[in-house]
């Protein structure tokens, strides 16, 4: 396994250490990696530096408090952090509610399958690499959608979005999710 492929798995290990041992060193490593990224993401979405820092701290505090809810068979660590940051920013920056889908009727979550979890974390890494490898123009378009520069109808009209490429990259993860949901 290369470093790049293993990165998300490593973050998952850090998250387990926070969850199980309240390990501050592991949390510091997560903070050092993710807090600047959350701040950058929010500033590119239109927040000023102060608000973005405040929000990044808030999101990282949630990462600590919600570590037990992280399910490595369903999301990569970056994906999970992204969803927390997105929800917080809707709340804080746009002062709206975000309706969430109802949870799946699985009852108490069984211990996630190790192989599924590992495969999903590796696929998340591959998606990061695929995004980096896109032509700059296409990558910028995707970023603009996530930073809130494109409305849903602009996304629909935008022919330059490499959704085909992205979809083929995440097809495996998608099939796995479908399988898990089915």
């Amino acid at each position, binding site marked *: 396994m290369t470093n790049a492929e293993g990165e998300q798995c490593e973050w998952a290990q850090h998250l387990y250490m926070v969850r199980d041992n309240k390990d*501050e060193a592991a949390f510091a490593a997560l*903070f050092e990696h993710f807090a*600047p*990224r*959350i701040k*950058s*993401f929010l*500033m590119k979405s239109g927040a000023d530096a102060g608000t973005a820092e405040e929000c*990044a*701290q*808030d999101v990282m505090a*949630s990462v*600590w*408090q*919600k570590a037990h809810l992280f399910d490595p068979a*369903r*999301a*990569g660590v*970056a*994906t*999970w*952090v*992204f*969803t927390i*940051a*997105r*929800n*917080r920013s*809707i*709340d804080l920056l746009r002062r*709206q*509610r*975000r*309706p*969430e*889908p*109802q*949870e*799946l*009727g699985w009852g108490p979550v069984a211990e996630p399958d190790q192989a599924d979890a590992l495969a999903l974390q590796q696929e*998340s890494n591959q*998606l*990061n690499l695929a*995004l*980096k490898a896109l032509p700059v123009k296409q990558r910028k378009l*995707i*970023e603009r*959608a996530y*930073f809130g520069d*494109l*409305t*849903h*109808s602009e996304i629909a009209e935008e022919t330059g979005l490499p*959704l085909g490429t992205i979809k083929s990259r*995440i097809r495996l*993860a*998608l099939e796995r*999710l*479908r399988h898990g*949901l089915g």
Partner: protein
Amino acid sequence: MTEVNQINHHLTDGLLMAYSAGTLPEGFGLVVATHVSMCDECRARAASFDALGGAVLETSAGPEAAMPAHSLTQTLERIRAGRPSAANEPRPATGGVFPAPLAAYVGGDLDRVKWRSYGIGLKQRILPVARGSSVRLLYIPAGMAVPDHGHRGTELTLVLQGAFRDETDRFGRGDIEVANEDLEHTPIAEEGAACICLAATDAPLRFTGLLPRLAQPFLRI
């Protein structure tokens, strides 16, 4: 499977991506969350757009992003103080007609809706959302046609009970119709049960007949 019935009409990539990015108006977000609650396929597609969001987060850091030196210490203090984080947890399935996110806006299931009647059997209930879109529940008696109308912007119609047909196809429980400016349609509720839909717009509807136009200010649609 979340639902046993077959869903034939799904969300578009544009709506799912904007929902994942968190940029959809609240009324649209409610329709998307309600459809995803009923549709495993769109739930998986939504998860894949979240994964893409995670990749954008992972690859987005520039020199402007450095956090102040004291911020880790502050965050740890915040955690020790035990200030609970405000975050919306997914809600368990309701077992009723309305999936959980819709039931949260209504304050219960179908029997709790405070309908406003418009004489001809058509009923509606506007749900409270932030500016930028409007969303309402529609009750269309079996066999009734909703006045012929076109759209500015986008109209989403999600079937919760019964079914309707229009010029394009048939829509049953869980199906969503995404209508844009090009579509002028006359949805007709099927015979049998009344058709109950969740409908959202990001612009007022425009009706083509005179009577509906007079009714429009009252319907607030």
